[in-house]
């Protein structure tokens, strides 16, 4: 599952095809495809969570890894997607698939409201403002009637596709697998394009980027909104899978976990981020008995990586 994404550049850009990358990638994809046939429900459930984190981490990676912006409230966009889809299906009887574009648009608007004023300023301002934004979205979800208050939203419809209703863990596993592959494809396509390079230019040297003709504010805003859109789509599918969502799924800790996933494997690089996301999904399973020590373990992991392996566990081997 780690390597399947590395096959994407080969598929996209034939001139870069290398068998050493393609073969393990195809093998991993094959494993991912048949996994639910052999694994029990618990393993499938964990794997589904891993896929969800892959989507979220790839989305946040656009903001942090590509554009170099620290977003500490990324879970807010995940919440915007989940609540938009949940409210529209549960309260207004919308078809699930129709809620996705609405959720994307809502996330875009939220992204502009937060991003437009702050992206003009120093990058550390954005970090704190997004931190605040994450809290605010949670407070709003807790205090409004339409979001179900503190107890959350229940009775979200399960989506149907060609008359087939997604019900079981396996169904959602495949749904998230498709979403993860799609997200990886999107990231790869952008990474190797004009806008993707512009994000990297801005990340590595903002002044030089402005000096060669890049509008740094719009470039950052686009990255921020792109990240928001991906999180909101993940939110829609998450709401459909859970059928019930509450504000506590979208805390600061959630944002931190996603960030940890991005940093752990190696920010800015898709294989690294996928690896990080899988590790983050496994973390709660490994730390099952740790109770209140869990956040400390997350924190120490984050600090240790930054101090001792700032390029992540699986860094880029660029010449």
């Amino acid at each position, binding site marked *: 599952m780690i390597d399947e994404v590395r096959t994407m550049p080969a598929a996209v850009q034939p001139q870069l095809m290398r068998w050493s990358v393609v073969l393990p990638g195809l093998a991993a994809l094959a494993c991912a495809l048949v996994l639910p046939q052999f694994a029990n429900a618990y393993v499938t459930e964990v794997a589904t969570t891993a896929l969800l984190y892959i989507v979220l981490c790839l989305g946040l990676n656009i903001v942090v890894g590509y554009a170099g912006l620290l977003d500490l409230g990324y879970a807010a966009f995940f919440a915007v997607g989940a609540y938009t889809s949940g409210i529209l299906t549960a309260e207004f009887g919308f078809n699930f698939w129709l809620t996705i574009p609405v959720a994307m648009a809502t996330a875009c608007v939220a992204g502009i409201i937060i991003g437009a004023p702050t992206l003009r300023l120093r990058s*550390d*301002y954005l970090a704190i403002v997004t931190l605040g934004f994450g*809290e605010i979205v949670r407070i709003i979800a807790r205090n409004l009637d339409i979001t179900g208050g503190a107890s959350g939203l229940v009775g979200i419809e399960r989506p149907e596709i060609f008359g087939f209703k997604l019900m079981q863990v396996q169904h959602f596993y495949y749904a998230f697998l498709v979403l993860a592959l799609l997200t990886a494809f999107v990231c790869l396509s952008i990474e190797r394009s004009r806008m993707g390079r512009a994000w990297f230019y801005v990340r590595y040297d903002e002044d030089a980027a402005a000096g060669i003709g890049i509008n740094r504010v719009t470039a950052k805003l686009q990255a921020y909104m792109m990240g928001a859109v991906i999180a909101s789509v993940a939110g829609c599918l998450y709401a459909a899978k859970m059928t019930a969502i509450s504000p506590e799924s979208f805390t*600061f800790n959630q944002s931190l976990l996603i*960030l940890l996933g991005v940093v752990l494997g190696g920010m800015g690089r898709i294989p690294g981020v996928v690896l990080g996301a899988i590790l983050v999904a496994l973390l709660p399973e490994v730390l099952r008995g740790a109770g209140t020590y869990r956040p400390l373990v*997350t924190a120490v992991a984050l600090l240790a990586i930054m101090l001792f392996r700032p390029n992540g566990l699986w860094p880029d081997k660029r010449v």
Partner: protein
Amino acid sequence: MTLDLVIQQLVNGLIVGSFYALIALGYSMVFGVIKLLNFAHGDIYMSGAFVGLIVFSFVGIWVGNGWLGVVCALLVSMLAVGLLGVVIERFVYRPMRNAPRLSILITALGASMVLNGTALALTGGRHYAFNTDLGFAGVDISTVHITYTQMVLVAASIALMAGMQAFVSRTMYGKAMRAVSIDMGASRLMGIDVDRVIALTFFMGSALAAGGGVMAGAYYGSVHFFMGFIMGLKAFTAAVIGGIGSVPGAMLGGLLLGLLEAFGSSLPFVGSEWRDVFVFGALILFLVFKPTGLLGRSVVERV
């Protein structure tokens, strides 16, 4: 709004505001010298409150739970947490000084989470009572009762801040601090021990936050591992409102924010559950319309 309510909210606003100001001041000072926000600042405040509580429960056995105990707790906590700030600077910020800004920010966030996670692990997430017997004696203005404790707290915060301002503007070290904040490289060339000045700034900023933590703990009567999170956010807002990097700005911003919050949440259509949303809105508005804050100066970054 009746006059009583106005007075009541004025008192509330001043007290919260002076806490905000103390924390914002530390933010601003550290930002001044290293040009970075200290993400761990809110958790340093929280650590201050806990250290204060521990000291308080020990010395309370001998000196009782009155003022003497609180003052001991305040001083010991400021010293200990000031040193904690120095340690964080030494092991987190200094190794990263030449790293990309994004890496420094994430590392600082990691440090902040380690403090927070440690507090959670040690306390199990429980609220701890900070029981003082400072009492409720005080004066009455119409129907509003203002305790002596409240007055002392506001006076103490103002004294701390005034002391800090005097230190920064009068002493050699204060001068060195200002020099480093204007041009680190040139200061080094002029023979200023920049590392030492930065460490000292972290010490003072952290000590102020710890002081705020102990006072807030004693005032509200309870401490909790998560108390630094929202406080960090609000102190940042206060620092932005006042103009980040400016010492008087931090004080002004803190007091204004305290008042804004007290009056804002007593408006009929806002309500206290929306208080934080209200503050956040103020932050966004300031960032849009006056990003340099009320007393801050805009600096043109060298290219």
